Structures are given as C-alpha cells and as structure tokens.
C-alpha cells in the first residue's frame, strides 16, 4: 500500500493532467483551474531556483575576499536597478543592467561564433570529397548533393544588390527552395515524433505503467468520468436552455 500522501499526490497529478487535456474539447473550468495553477507554480519555482543560486554563490566564492564581497553587493545594487522600470520618473535606470546583460550575451556569442558556426561549418563543407571511387553510393552522390545544395540555400538569402542579380540565380533559388522544402519535411517528421512521445509519456502515467505509480490508472478512470460527465452534462443543459428559448 502506498503512502496516503503519494496517493493524494497522484490524484492531483491526474487531475491537472486531464484538466489540461479537456481544452481539446473546449474551454472549461477544469482547464482554467489547471492552467492557473501552472502559471503560478512556474513563477514561484523560478524564484526558488534563482534565490538558491544567489545564496550558493555567496557561500561559494564571493564571500572569500573583501574585493569579491564588494563585487557581490555591487551585483545586488545593479540587480535592484531592474526594478526602476516600475518607476515613472527613473525608469531609464533599468536600462543599465539590461545593457550589461546584453553586452555580455552578445560578447559571449561573438567570442566563438565565427569559429563554431561559420568556420567549422565551412571547413566541413570544404572537406566534401566529390569523387570517392570505391563508394559512389551513398558517399559520392551525397557529397555532390551537399556541395550544390548548401551554397544554393546560402545564396537564396542574398537580398541586396537587387539590380545586379545574375540570371542564373533563378535556378539557384529554385534549387534552394526545393532543398529547404525537403529539409522542412524532416523537421515536420521529427516534430511529430516529439509531440507524440510527450503524449505517450503522459498516457503511460495515466495508465500507471511502471515506473509510474500503478495508482494512476484508477485515478485516471475516476477523474476522466467526473470531468466528462460534468462537461457533457453542462453542454446538454445549455442546449436544452437554448432550445427552450
């Protein structure tokens, strides 16, 4: 026998799971309750996580020397500047922490982006061997396709110098669009896999398939019946009302 608290928890979990799923039928109070709970918990959870980090950081490295301590409190001061956005008069101060974050973010990406996303990709492109005698299919053919397709897609996004666009670009654009369409097909296929995997995961929970708790299954049946009955019952009542009028 599982603990009472776990059983209670499982019922809550089943309730919110089904509550969200009821949106598939139509908007209703079960959905609104689950959604509101979600909204609140997510924000509260974020607070807990960030504050834990702030505290760990202090204990870990910033309390070790007086210079570090000053740095820590300086960060707190700059952090307070965020909240000037709620002031009508001094709102502009909140741009300072924003500027620091934006600068660090852009700088951190700019550091290595040219190598990680530009040069390494071009090097891989330059390593394509267009003639591998002992491996015509798939290597040679694939390499030739990649050799043509990647530059075509790159050039498709060439927007400026509209007047001096050479005539052959028409064919490049066409090849690029076909390549991208096939590529998007692959994105579609994998997205279907993801979304169904998530749904399957929830279904496994509702059916109590291990390692999910077996108590999920009866809870699922009970909750599903209650929700369906209330929603369909409510709908029928509404219908009766409108026909009576």
């Amino acid at each position: 026998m599982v603990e009472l608290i776990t059983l209670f928890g499982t019922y809550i979990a089943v309730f919110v799971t089904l509550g969200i799923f009821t949106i598939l039928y139509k908007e209703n109070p079960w959905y609104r309750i689950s959604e509101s709970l979600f909204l609140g918990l997510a924000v509260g959870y974020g607070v807990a996580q960030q504050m834990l980090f702030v505290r760990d950081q202090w204990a870990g490295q910033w309390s070790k020397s007086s210079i570090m301590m000053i740095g820590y409190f300086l960060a707190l001061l700059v952090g307070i500047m965020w909240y000037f956005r709620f002031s009508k008069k001094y709102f502009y101060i909140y741009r300072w922490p924003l500027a620091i974050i934006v600068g660090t973010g852009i700088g951190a990406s700019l550091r290595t982006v040219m190598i990680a996303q530009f040069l390494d990709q071009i090097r891989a492109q330059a390593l394509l061997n267009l003639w591998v005698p002992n491996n015509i299919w798939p290597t040679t053919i694939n390499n030739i396709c990649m050799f043509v397709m990647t530059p075509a897609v790159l050039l498709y996004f060439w927007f400026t110098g509209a007047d001096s666009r050479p005539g052959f670009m028409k064919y490049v654009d066409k090849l690029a669009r076909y390549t991208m369409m096939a590529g998007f097909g692959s994105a579609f296929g994998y997205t279907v896999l993801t979304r169904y995997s998530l749904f399957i995961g929830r279904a496994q929970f509702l059916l109590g398939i291990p390692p999910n708790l077996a108590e999920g299954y009866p809870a699922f049946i009970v909750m599903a019946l209650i929700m369906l009955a209330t929603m369909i019952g409510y709908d029928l009542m509404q219908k009766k009302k409108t026909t009576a009028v």
Partner: protein
Amino acid sequence: MLRRIEIPIALTIIFTLLQTIPYYFRWESNLKLVDPIEQASSIASQWVLLIVAWSIFIGVISLLQVHGKTVQKRSKGWHYSIIVLVSCIVMAIAGLPFAEVGLGIKNPVYTFLFNYAQSPLSATVFATIAFFITSAAYRSFRAKNIEATIVLVAGLLMVMSNAPLFTATLPVVKTIGQWIYDVPNMATNRAVTIGGALGLVALAIRTLLGRERGYLRGGGD
C-alpha cells in the same frame, strides 16, 4: 545627465569587448602566469549571472499586478486569479533557500508541488500539441503545388522512418528518411547556421557602433 542613452550604450560596448577580445588575443606579461584580461572576462561573466538572478522578481511583480488587479476588481474569472496568486506565493516561499528553517528544495511542500503539480502540468501542456499537429496534418497538408508536394512527401517519409512499424516492414523508408536527414536537411541547417553566425556578427557591429538600440527603446526618450 544620468538619463542619457549613451550610458547604457557604453556599458553594452564595454561588456561586449570584455568577453570577445581575450578569446583572440593573449596578454603576455612576465609577472603573472594568468592572463589578467581573460581572468577579468571570466569573473565578469560570473558576476553578470548574479544580476540575471536578481531580475526574477520582475515576473513576480507583473504577475501580482495583473492578477492582483483582477481579484481586486472582481473581474471575470477572478477566482482563477486567486489560484494563480496562492500557488505562486506558496511555491516561492516553500522553495526559498533557507534550509535552516526547513525551506528550500528539500522542503516537502515544494517537492510535493513539483512532483505532483508542476511537473505533470508542463509536460501535459506540451503533449496537447500532438493533437494540434494531427489535425493540422489532416486539414492543411495538401499537395497544392510542387513545393507543397515536396514538403508533404518528405514529411510523410520522415514520419514513417521514425516509426518501427514502417522501418521493419519497409526498410527502404529508413534509407530515404536518412538521406533526407543527411542531405537536404543538413544543407538547409548548415546554411541557416552560417547565416545565423553572420546575422549575429552584424548585430554585434550595430551594437558596437551604437546603432542597435532596439532593446533600449520604449518607455519614453
């Protein structure tokens, strides 16, 4: 004076350069083994994390504003706003990092809410998209022209190549799916990756020249 837009622009430029320069240049000094600029850049990146962490209450305040107002005015659906407020406050307080008084990530209320409410909720919200995809696939995946047909055929082959039911009975599906993934998909994503890198550099230049003010606009001035 403090109001000037030049202050945040200057801050952005300083912090951008502080992160970027030490990656390409090494400062040679006979006195110390560690490169002082690289060290400064590394400490700055950790210091910035603290500033990021302190911004978390912005979300809380806007939540309190929006839902607090709804409850106060008894607007439509104010009962739900109470749920939002209560769940937010309980979760935040239970999770505050004061293990000395029993709060924090090991707090039973916190772990209970995490395991039995937040975790199932967010997973389910994403799972509902499976249904939208299915009905969209049925409703709008039509072979209207050559391009749409390519997406459709490639998409279907890809769906099949992800399902063992098809790959076991028709292994060729996986071969084609693999080709789509390895070649056109790779080419598309490589071009987008390279294009993204160029876009980022352009954004950085506009920032360094003080021309990119998008993130500083708004709220007057």
